[in-house]
């Protein structure tokens, strides 16, 4: 899923410094699962903003609404009735796709991202999320023992580990596992290090990645 985290409170506060009526829109997709922008988080942010405004003696109305998803026009459409209430600002608590879809549908609205969209990954345990994919568009993790060097190696190298790998961690931080250490160890343990894994990996073709420009998928069988 897409992992996001809420922006610092002061930044969110600065977005609405001169606003009197604000709508916070949550999303029941990925950001609910990663505890960043679901109904619960919308409620927390709304309370924080209300309390802060009361403390400063500012007039502020904050409404809350959570959509099924913000990455689908049919759900964005549901906002129409609310938008007609003329908010001074809309804070979207979805990944960055959400505020972009909201703005595209309601161009007259002042829409702000309330989250920082961080990466595609999963939870190691409750409260800890890690990156596992960069969406390069051509998955080859089966060549690397089921691990992705594009997203998990700081240098995205295809023939690792580099000289900065020591004691299983990456040169950039002792907190970051060296994925190439894990890959190489697995290859040695499974007896592939000197056989199937021995050849030099081919040059990575980045055309399917972001480097080929913004991407789009058209499924003719689904398009009406």
């Amino acid at each position, binding site marked *: 899923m897409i992992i996001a985290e809420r922006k610092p409170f002061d930044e969110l506060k600065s977005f609405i410094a001169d606003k009197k009526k604000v709508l916070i829109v949550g999303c029941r997709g990925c950001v609910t699962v990663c505890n960043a922008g679901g109904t619960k988080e919308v409620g927390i942010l709304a309370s924080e903003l209300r309390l802060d405004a009361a403390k400063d003696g500012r007039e502020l109305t904050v409404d809350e609404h959570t959509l099924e998803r913000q990455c689908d026009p049919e759900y964005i459409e549901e906002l129409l009735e609310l938008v007609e209430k003329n908010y001074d600002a809309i804070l979207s608590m979805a990944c960055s796709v959400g505020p972009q879809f909201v703005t595209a549908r309601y161009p007259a609205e002042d829409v702000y991202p309330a989250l920082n969209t961080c990466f595609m990954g999963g939870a190691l345990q409750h409260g800890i999320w890690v990156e596992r994919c960069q969406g390069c568009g051509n998955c080859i993790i089966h060549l690397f023992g089921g691990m992705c060097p594009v997203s998990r190696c*700081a240098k995205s190298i295809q*023939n690792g580990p580099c*000289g900065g790998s020591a004691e*299983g961690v990456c*040169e950039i931080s002792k907190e970051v596992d060296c994925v190439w250490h894990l890959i190489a160890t697995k290859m040695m343990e499974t007896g592939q290090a000197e056989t199937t894994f021995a050849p030099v990996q081919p*040059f990575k073709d980045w055309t399917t990645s972001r480097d080929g420009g913004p991407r789009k998928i058209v499924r003719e069988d689904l398009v009406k």
Partner: protein
Amino acid sequence: MSREVRTKSNLEKVLASGQFAVTGELGPPRSAARDEVTEKAKHLLGNVDSVNITDNQTAVVRMCSLSAALILQETGLEANMQMVCRDRNRIAMQSDILGAAAMGINNLLVLSGDHQKFGDHPESKNVFDIDSINLIKTVKMMRDDRRLLSGQEMAEGTEPRIFIGGAFNPFADPEDYRVLRVAKKVEAGVDFLQSQCIYDMVRFKKFMSRAVDMGLHEKCYFMAGITPLKGLGMAKYMKNNVPGITVPDEMIERMKGVPKDKQVDEGMKIAAEQIEEMRTLPGIAGVHLMFIEWEHMVPRMVDEVKIGPKYRK
């Protein structure tokens, strides 16, 4: 031992003749001061066979390695121009290789490159389009197949005749995989390899013995990286703070055992002993003297162990 010579490289000529080669290292200035390059070069001239010119090492902005390499070559020394994968995509790399060869660069040493997190622009974007092993393959293809990665051919005699270098680190992990990664570099077409700074001789010898067993030393020249310890402080720093460098406790104890004003001499003595051992270590074709910001000590070292151009017949 004598091997085929494929380039105009002086370093290749020395290595192919079976003589014990000596390379040095020079870090370009953090300015446009060409004098700093020529000043450092003075200490190396006549003492080494060629000199590595680092490419924005530790991700700190410096004069580009090609320009510094050309300034160095004006002094009569030969450059091993370094190129890292951090700052260039395959378009820029091939372009710079063509330009370097056209300007008389014979040796190119390719590396992944330190992550920019360590440097003076941690907020920058990195490239890492291809890695060091694929860069080795790129240079080999340009030289031996006379083709660019696109398939574009170069007319005979217009291809870059580059002696291809790489790095190896027997002290990084996983230890057992290190020699296999070197085998990949050899398969990719590397001609010579220089090691990370060696302090742990036991681990280094173990590594070389495996490399020799695999016959890698017959396909590529291995050069041992030597950096003298300047004192106890440096020994401890290298041990604790530099990823991929191991300093054995015995060496720390040995530095501790001498008074502070004699530690430089002790560090030089240890390095001299290492060089002596390297001269007869199977598979080792030379030493790479990484006297970082300590170039003026190179003449003393080569005179002490009697290596380098002036001690050859």
